[in-house]
């Protein structure tokens, strides 16, 4: 029941990201999503609660809920960019595409030969949905910050998948993924800062001017 609730909230936050026009609120939404997902392993494995699940949860919440948003807000502030998302694909179209992706995720989720062994059959579909939305955000938005967010949402999807499917190994896997994500956000944060300093803007579509 609680996991269902969290997963539905994750789905909603994804839709909100698709329709959101402000970078600041997008960052906050992704942070909230991270915190909710951080709590997920505790709820899924509520019967076999152990130190390492608690540690994993604490680590995830701290990283996704505090560190990443802080880094991103800093990048946003330093870069002093306008706060609009600047989409290639309009917000309403994005939401409709998101709904189609959600339906597809549920359809796929019902067919993927993975047994979660859990009553929470929402796990796989919502994981897939997060991955789709992350990809979509990377493709369909101009701002570099938004692409970092898309990357994070995608990582959240993989994480959800991991929590549900790989019941035994989550700690190691998750640790690896988290490290990757951390490095990625760090690097991109710095990159955004430097791109901005050099070129006075952080629009990815203008990076093609760099080629020789």
């Amino acid at each position: 029941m609680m996991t269902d609730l969290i997963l539905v909230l994750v789905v909603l936050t994804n839709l909100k990201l698709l329709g959101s026009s402000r970078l600041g609120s997008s960052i906050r939404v992704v942070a909230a999503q991270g915190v909710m997902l951080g709590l997920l392993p505790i709820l899924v494995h509520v019967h076999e609660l152990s130190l390492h699940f608690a540690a994993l949860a604490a680590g995830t919440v701290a990283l996704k809920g505090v560190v990443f948003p802080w880094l991103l807000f800093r990048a946003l502030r330093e870069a002093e960019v306008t706060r609009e998302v600047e989409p290639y694909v309009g917000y309403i179209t994005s939401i409709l595409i998101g709904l189609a992706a959600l339906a597809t995720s549920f359809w796929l989720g019902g067919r993927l030969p993975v047994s979660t062994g859990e009553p929470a059959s929402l796990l796989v579909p919502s994981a897939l949905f997060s991955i789709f939305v992350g990809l979509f955000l990377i493709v369909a938005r101009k701002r570099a910050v938004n692409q970092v967010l898309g990357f994070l949402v995608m990582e959240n999807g993989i994480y959800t998948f991991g929590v549900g499917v790989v019941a035994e190994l989550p700690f190691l896997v998750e640790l690896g993924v988290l490290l990757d994500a951390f490095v990625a956000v760090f690097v991109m944060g710095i990159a955004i800062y430097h791109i901005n300093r050099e070129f006075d803007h952080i629009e990815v579509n203008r990076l093609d001017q760099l080629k020789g």
Partner: protein
Amino acid sequence: MVLLLSRVDRDFSWVGAGSVVIAAVSGCLPAFGVLLHGSVEQLRLPWSVPFGEFFIELDPLSAWFLMPTLVLSALSAIYGVGYLRAWQGRRSLGPSWFFYCLLVLGMMFVLLARNAVLFLMAWELMALASFFLVTFEHERESVRKAGWIYFVATHLGTAFLLVFFLLLGRETGSMDFTVWAEKGVRTHGPANVLFLLAVIGFGTKAGFMPLHVWLPEAHPAAPSHVSALMSGVMIKTGIYGLLRALTFLGVPPLWWGWGLIAIGLTSGGLGVLFALAQHDLKRLLAYSSVEHIGIITMGLGVGLLGVSTDSPVLVVLGFGGGLLHVVNHALFKGLLFLGVGAVLHGSGTREIDHLGGLLKRMPWTAAAFLIGAVAISGLPPLNGFVSEFLIFLGAFQGGVSTGGAVAVPLFMLVAGLALIGGLAVACFTKAFGIVFLGEPRSEHVAHAHEAEWTMRLPMLILAAGCILICLFAPVVVGSLKTVLESMTGLQPLVVDENLAAAISPLSFVVLGTALFLALLAALVLLRRHLLEHRRVETDVTWRCGYAQPTPRMQYTASSFAQPLTDLFGPLLGTRKIISPPRGLFPAEAALKTMTPDFSHEAVYRPVFGRVHEWLSQLQRLQHGKVQLYVLYIAVTLIALLVWELR
């Protein structure tokens, strides 16, 4: 019924109209009998055409389509007498009436024919007659162009039908519809191909969305009573054909239902959006016909899903809703086209933004048009609501318990139909509000006048029909029983049982409607009582403090629809030409919008351009030298000889 032929070719409106009315009355009686008793009447005559047989039959399905066809034909004919009077003296009206009668005859034979050859001949007769009717004002370039688009489109459709009939004939070894219905096609491969051929062939006539290009061209070009007939019933022959074809094709796979619902959603949604973006009244109505063909198709899709999954309640509600919508659309679309005809007749323009305030000058037309507008928006207490209610009810009933493969299309239908309903309200409040209400927007309205009684009477009869169908909804839906039995082959008991599932909520709807009308009457009395001894003054409209209002400051049709057309801009491709006001004392500013048809612009124009280029190569063969023509003939004959003796 054949009274028609003997008397048509006379140069006098009353004779033309009178013969149609007589034919309609004499045709309606047997049709009504067949509907009531579920019997079948046949007529077979020997005929010398190869594979052809003069075989006509009146079964409940034909009768259901025949009734609105005849009624609307008769009413439009009466209307035409008054409408065409403006041309009297300037043009011989004989041909127009001749082709009108031919069109009616063609439609009747399309509905009655039970032999493929006869059917195709009737189909062609209908197409040719309506082509000549569309080009009534052939001195105008735009009308000629519209006529040709119609001509080409309808023949492309016929080409698909020809293949459809030939394939069916090869499968079964007969050209007889009754044989086809008995034997049918029981194998999946050919059935799928035949289904697609039928959808394209009949869909071109009906106006399914990518195939609809001729509708918004031909309807505005034709005289209004002809537009009413074409839009109200002629395009329904496409739906009839599709239904008839389905009876040949055995048990449908699930994807046919999906397909029809998808076609219905695209036609319905895009149809109403394009209608919303138009500022030519007749074009608006033409696109709205595409929308309603979409709604009918959704109903058929629900029915097909029911057949596939063996769920009689879906069959009855889906097909029943679709069939009832056929009749309803004939009534209110006929009414609206006649109303627009009266507006055009009175004011000389059908440009919505040039009209306004017509209600004061044409009260009867306005009242009839208002009823049509409410009905077409699918609102109670009128007939459009009843048929949409059945389709919705079918979708909800089916969605309650079924698995995803059936529930998903049904719920998509619910969402889509809800959106279409909302947009239809926007579209027709615009059409009625801007044309008939407010202050006149141009000179055209100043000399507008009410239509004469021959034009008013048909409109009032149709409006009454819209009201009566809702008030007697349970009876009307009950009369679908025989049609559904003969069409789907369900047991009478099963049909009865499931029709009851539709009729009992409908009787509550009627009760609600009656209560609504009673409450309305009570409120009218209450208001009259309240205002009896009070001050009732008149003054100018509150202009929010602005002192110098002019009629040109009113909201126009384009500005009314602008938020929606902007939101759906990517789908519509509306073009704006803006010259904004400049400087401190701007002299003039202009805004022009137009919404070209996307499938016309993006598909047909390039394709036909290419075809034209390619075919013009062939013109080299034609250079006027008689000797060479003889040579062609000789070469062809020799080639044929060689082929034969090979």
